[in-house]
């Protein structure tokens, strides 16, 4: 079974993003970039499927700028076998990414596409569901547990009120939630090995996909700041203020 794992290069989750002074977006120049944390979880799960003998090959894919190669090398250092970079300077939206992935699925014929449930930059939470729709495949989103057997994937999903379990007919799309696993750190020997693994670069046009965004960013602004609060000295003081000042209890 072949597993395709799309990964995105985003501002590192430890960095606080800064809105550009001209209000056109968020500053990325000179900012530390890393693999989207949810995608790391997806890579980890795919690699574990390979280690269990269920997956035979794990192919990492990224849509983005030249430096997204680093993200793909990270995926290969974690255990992906090879990688494909769909090179573009356009900030491709989930619809465009899903179309690119559909074209790659046609080329690669995976049995499972494992994605992070959302990217922590645009917080869209859409690519996996959209790819599933375009392909007409089953989808298991927000997965906290995956089991593969007999041509089916059994997926436990994190939903608003608790957990839901579905079975999906393969081929299928699964998106990873936080508690699916804890991704490994790549060891130095594996990082060295990853440098020699194959990385193919193609353009969206090679796949016949138009990635022109449908959404125009009109403006990006800081959210309104909260007023500076106060430090209270005691529990009694806190309760008195909540009652008399804030009037919320």
């Amino acid at each position, binding site marked *: 079974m072949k597993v395709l794992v799309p990964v995105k290069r985003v501002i590192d989750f430890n960095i606080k993003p800064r809105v550009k002074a001209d209000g056109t977006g968020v500053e990325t120049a000179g900012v530390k970039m890393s693999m989207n944390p949810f995608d790391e979880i997806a890579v980890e799960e795919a690699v574990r499927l390979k280690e269990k003998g269920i997956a035979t090959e794990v192919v990492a894919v990224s849509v983005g700028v030249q430096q997204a190669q680093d993200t793909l090398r990270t995926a290969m250092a974690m255990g992906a076998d090879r990688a494909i970079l769909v090179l573009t300077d356009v900030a491709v939206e*989930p*619809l465009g990414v899903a179309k690119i992935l559909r074209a790659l699925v046609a080329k690669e014929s995976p049995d499972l596409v494992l994605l992070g449930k959302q990217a922590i930059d645009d917080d869209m939470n859409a690519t996996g569901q959209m790819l599933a729709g375009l392909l007409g495949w089953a989808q298991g989103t927000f997965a906290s547990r995956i089991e593969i057997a007999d041509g089916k994937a059994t997926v436990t999903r994190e939903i608003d009120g*608790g957990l*839901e379990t579905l079975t999906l007919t393969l081929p299928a799309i699964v998106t990873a939630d936080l508690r699916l696993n804890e991704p490994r750190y790549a060891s130095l020997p594996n990082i060295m090995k990853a440098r020699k693994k194959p990385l193919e670069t193609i353009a969206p046009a090679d796949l016949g996909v138009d990635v022109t965004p449908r959404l125009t960013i009109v403006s990006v602004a800081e959210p309104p700041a909260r007023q500076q609060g106060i*430090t*209270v000295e005691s529990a009694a003081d*806190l309760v008195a203020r*909540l009652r008399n000042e804030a009037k*919320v209890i």
Partner: protein
Amino acid sequence: MAVLVFLDHESGIIRQASRSAVTAARALGEVHALVTGDASVAEAAARIDGVAKVLRAAGAAAAHELAEPLAAVIADLAPAYTHIVAASGASGKNVLPRAAALLDVQPIPDVVSIVDADNFVRPIYAGSALATVRSSDAKKVLTVRASSFDPAPAEGGAAPIEQVTVPDGPALSAFVSIALSQSERPELESARVIVSGGRGMQNEENFKLLNPLADRLGAAIGASRAAVDAGFVPNDYQVGQTGKIVAPELYIAVGISGAIQHLAGMKDSKIIVAINKDPEAPIFQVADYGLVGDLFDILPQVEAALDKAG
């Protein structure tokens, strides 16, 4: 043309967040509500103030709000609508992007403000920035943040109910089971008061120390990602970027340091109280009232002060 709103339900009860989606949708046009499940769900939808028509997708294929048949239903109905809206809960986020793909539309998730029919405001980077986006798609597909729109009243409407058919297709996924957390407390997303615990609660046993305070205040109980990851409480307690987004009248954060992703889920609360032993914890930067100290000393003191105040 009208607006189609998908109302999700849990155990037959339409989620309050979906009624907030009705309010958001009313700004865009006449609201038609799509529901699945028993006739009682459709009847409840028909009573929501502001709903002009209810479309009920009945039958096994539409049960459990499975994404594959439901997205197909929405795509089928779409030609009659300018906008397709749902609350940005787990169900809306599961179904709407799939429907958008079938319609060749880029969805707009987590809308917090509707500027006009084409322009929407949504948070990005865990709420560190607010983006105003303009959609060039002929039809818009959006999910809306319940915390940004008041829920439409559950009573007051008397909309007609129509049946809609689920398009034929292979059964790609099948429902196996559901495990809902049992709680007598209010839902996180509709609670007036929330008491949340973090890593500072130390373990599952200690986390229960929040119960008396929550009982006293009629509060829902939430948690930071750290507390959920550590196994103190189940996943559905999580407040934050990837958990629930809440904006209660009063949010009491106990032993929560205030990571960006947690703040993303609660910083629009009206009043925020932080109790933490680390005076440098980022949670104090968003708190209206901060109390520095050991939460295990402070919690009983707060309860005593509440009792005394009556």
